[in-house]
């Protein structure tokens, strides 16, 4: 991909996450602060919209997630998951927030699997994680 197309894709990705992603995160936080499941759900919906829009942009520019995006996404997911687990372990988390958190992580995991399946197919998605040993690789050769 030409550097110009790469930049155009980058601008779109920044815009998408700057608008839908941040807005979604805001609603998610709002839902947690007010213990309102429905508000959290709006936030989750907006983050899913951002994710889908990002995938559409990737498709338009015939590209997957960059290494930086993957690292940032997985890192952010890890931090959020850690915070959720710590908050839950500390106790006193309202039931609404607990379910909102579960929904959030459930949707993200489901979305991630759906993305892999639609991009690489069922077998290909599995192969992304299945690391072949040297002996098997050699025998296939």
């Amino acid at each position: 991909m030409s550097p110009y197309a790469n930049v155009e894709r980058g601008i779109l990705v920044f815009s998408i996450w700057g608008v839908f992603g941040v807005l979604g995160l805001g609603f998610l936080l709002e839902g947690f602060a007010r213990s309102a499941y429905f508000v959290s759900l709006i936030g989750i919906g907006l983050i899913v919209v951002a994710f889908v829009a990002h995938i559409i942009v990737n498709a338009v520019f015939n590209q997957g997630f960059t290494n930086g995006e993957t690292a940032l996404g997985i890192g952010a997911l890890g931090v959020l998951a850690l915070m959720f687990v710590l908050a839950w372990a500390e106790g006193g988390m309202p039931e609404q927030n607990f379910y909102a958190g579960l929904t959030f992580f459930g949707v993200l995991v489901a979305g991630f699997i759906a993305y892999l399946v639609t991009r690489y197919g069922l077998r290909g998605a599995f192969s992304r994680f299945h690391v072949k040993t040297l002996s098997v690789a050699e025998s296939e050769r």
Partner: protein
Amino acid sequence: MTGLSHEMWLPLFGFLYAAVTLYWARVAALQNRNTETFFSAGHSLPPWIAVLVLAGSAISGWFLLGGAAEISAHGFGLPALLQGGVALALPGVFFFKRIWFVAQRLRLSSQGELFRSYYHSEFLVVVSAAISVLFAVGFAGLQLRAVSHLISLLTGGTVSPLQAGVVVGFVLFGYVVIGGMRAVGYLGAIQTLLLGAVLIGFAGFALLEVGGFRTLNDALRALAAEDATGARFLVSGVIHFTAGLGRDGGVALTSTSVTSLGLAFALMGFQASPLAAKIVMSTQSANGFGAGQTWVLAGVFGGLIAFGVAVIGAAGIVDPNLSLPGMLARLAEASPWFMGWMTIGLVAGVQLVAGLALLTAGEALVRNLYKPWFHSGLSRADTVNLTRIVIGVLTLGSVLMQFLAPVALSALGSVALPLAFQLWTPLLGTTWLRWITRPAAVTGVGFGIAGVLLTEPLGYQILSFLGLELPWGRWPWTIHSAAWGMAANLAAVLIVSAITNRRSFGEEAVEVQRFLRETLRIGERAHALRSTAWSVVLAWLFFAVGPGLIFGNYAFGAAKGGTWLVGMPSIWAWSLLFWVLGVAMTWFLSYALEMASPYRLEIPPYSPPPRLRRDHSADERERLRILVISGAAAFALIVLTTWSFGR
């Protein structure tokens, strides 16, 4: 929510935003590779980015900061505000495609170069440069000042307005001088989308706070029924023959339909300004202008203004605490993350126009004035570096004026749009009306400037300072300065064009006329629709922003104490109706009349006949000497005048 977490969100979003701007400035600088593409991004900005930047810079923070506040304070008496999207889009429909073609043919990079090539007029080059400086220092400075005060308010005074202004100005300066036009374009696209989202966010929050759209209109209906506030839902007449604001012993009414018409004219100034020309000339293709002007600016942003800004303003009418700062203060308590995001969105909108204006002004002063007059041997690298210094000086000047001379800043900012509207006549001459001669364009702009300045505080305060009291104030007869200026401008253009030689154009102008005539000749169908188009435009101007607004007072129900047929004030419903018709009209002009329709053509550069290059260094040194002496004399004269006449 602890106090700490409440206060951390705005700085957090601020740091994120600053990081994003610097990241894109770096990307732009890397793509620029050298100083050759600093000013115009190598004329390679993708059309969709140009479209977004054109729309975002036209809207900027002005409608959120100024438009909503105007509706909150004075009601719906200036419906031209609500037609902002269409009014801002129309000039682009008329000019952009043709300006881009001319710029490609002559390999031009700025409006000043266009005027110099076509009219051989240094006066028009100076006017274009002055207008870009007014936008950079005055127009954008006013918005930056408002944003700085807002940040100070939201941090509870922890950050002073001056500190906020310095930080915002520093980030702005940083990305403009690092990445040039490419950074302004790349970031502008992100800033525009953020601004649009924030506009929706403010409107949504306003509706939530007042209890929904129906509750809002119920409250408006109650206010409309009262004598004291009923006038806020009416255009007060076609014209009032007053001496203008600040005269006649009181404040004259400014909610007449001719004021609206004049305001629409002023808004039409933005896309005739050097700022818009800068984006147009930095774009790789003219094929996005039609869609951009029709769907992005007139359609999406026009709708956001006609509905969103109106909702925010109406919420302010119902509850004065729901002004923009009031809303953000409430958000800071209830949802600080939204407050942080929306404030940064607003800052992004303001920085968008400020960055573009600074770059345009820097280029105009250095590349269009200093270099050709005083130092033609300046290398490209030195030109860029000098422009960076000038941008720094302009930013510093703007920040200082925001806090040391806010009245002067306001006076300068208020003339930027009306003065830019005066550039319509030379642009029409370049793109459509070949009979506008060089003397006519120059005289017209001169008269137009005089018309604007004599009906704005800047002009009559200067004259008053010198002891000459004008018998009128701001906007006499409730006619906006943009309209006064254009009346003088048009009269001069028509008269001078009639009495001057229409064949006395230079080689470049003749080439431009030939090139446009041969390449952009409209089809037979479009030709047959021309009279219809004129009728449609005049009818829209008459009913949407002109004298016909009077019908809007009662078209959808009685303004005071009666039934509102569509559940909202009649004049607001009228404005929404004409926004929809305005989008249709923009589409009609862009596509059916082929004014901004896509057109694919490889444009070879024009090769002027070879001329002998003289060594101008002696002349330039002499000019520089005269400039220094004149500057010193002018400074001394100003000091002397201040001592003699100043109060």
